[in-house]
């Protein structure tokens, strides 16, 4: 049952992803990405990471999509921008993507250790993740916060208008 749900969500996910990569209209593209992110959150839930799904929705779908929409708004040349796809690069892009896919699939399906792994029965929620953060991964946590701070400051510095 769960497996069928996984497969179904994944199919929808991949459909949205393909639309993201190919749509001409930039705004449509952003909304397709929103779809991808939401479906990913659903997948997270089905994979036993409900906390992460929440984070995904809040940060990604809420934050990143909004940011992207703003970006599209601020950088359009004319309303309802048509983004022409570069005809010269479609071929090589497809080739590279397919090649990469082959390599990855080869890695996945030919590694014998993966066949024997089983599902762990732990229930992971916010508590467990939080405990990890504040014990073994404390340094990473702190560094991450510094990183976020610097990203913010950097972004502000980059786009501020300097007075003449």
């Amino acid at each position, binding site marked *: 049952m769960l497996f069928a749900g996984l497969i179904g969500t994944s199919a929808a996910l*991949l459909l949205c992803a393909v639309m993201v990569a190919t749509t001409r209209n930039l705004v449509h593209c952003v909304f397709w990405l929103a779809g991808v992110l939401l479906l990913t959150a659903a997948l997270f839930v089905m994979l036993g990471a409900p906390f992460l799904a929440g984070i995904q929705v809040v940060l990604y779908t809420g934050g990143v999509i909004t940011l992207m929409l703003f970006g599209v708004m601020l950088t359009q040349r004319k309303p309802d921008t048509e983004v022409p796809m570069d005809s010269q690069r479609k071929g090589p892009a497809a080739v590279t993507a397919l090649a990469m896919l082959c390599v990855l699939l080869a890695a996945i399906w030919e590694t014998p250790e993966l066949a024997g*792994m089983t599902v762990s029965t732990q229930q992971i929620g916010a508590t467990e993740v939080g405990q990890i953060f504040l014990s073994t991964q404390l340094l990473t946590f702190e560094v991450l916060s510094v990183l976020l701070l610097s990203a913010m400051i950097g972004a502000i510095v980059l*786009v501020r208008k300097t007075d003449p």
Partner: protein
Amino acid sequence: MELQILLSIAAILFCVGIYGVISRRNAIGVLLSLELMANAVNLNLVIFARYGDGAVGQAFTLFAIALTVAEVVVGLALVVLLYRTRHDVLTELASDLKR
């Protein structure tokens, strides 16, 4: 078997992202495709978390999400800067280092 199918799904997602990154002309389009790739990575991590040490795996995923967000922020700031100078955000406009 189930693991491998799930991993394959993440792999396909990743490759769709690659296609998008290489072929899109608009800078924001590239960023969006980049998001797909990041998403595939996160999905991969979560899948492995289910089959191994779940807590650490999910913590790792959280880090990845945070990093991706930071990267998107800075990326969009650069796109805005690009727009300011060129009044358009096609990637070929940022090709001054050519020759």
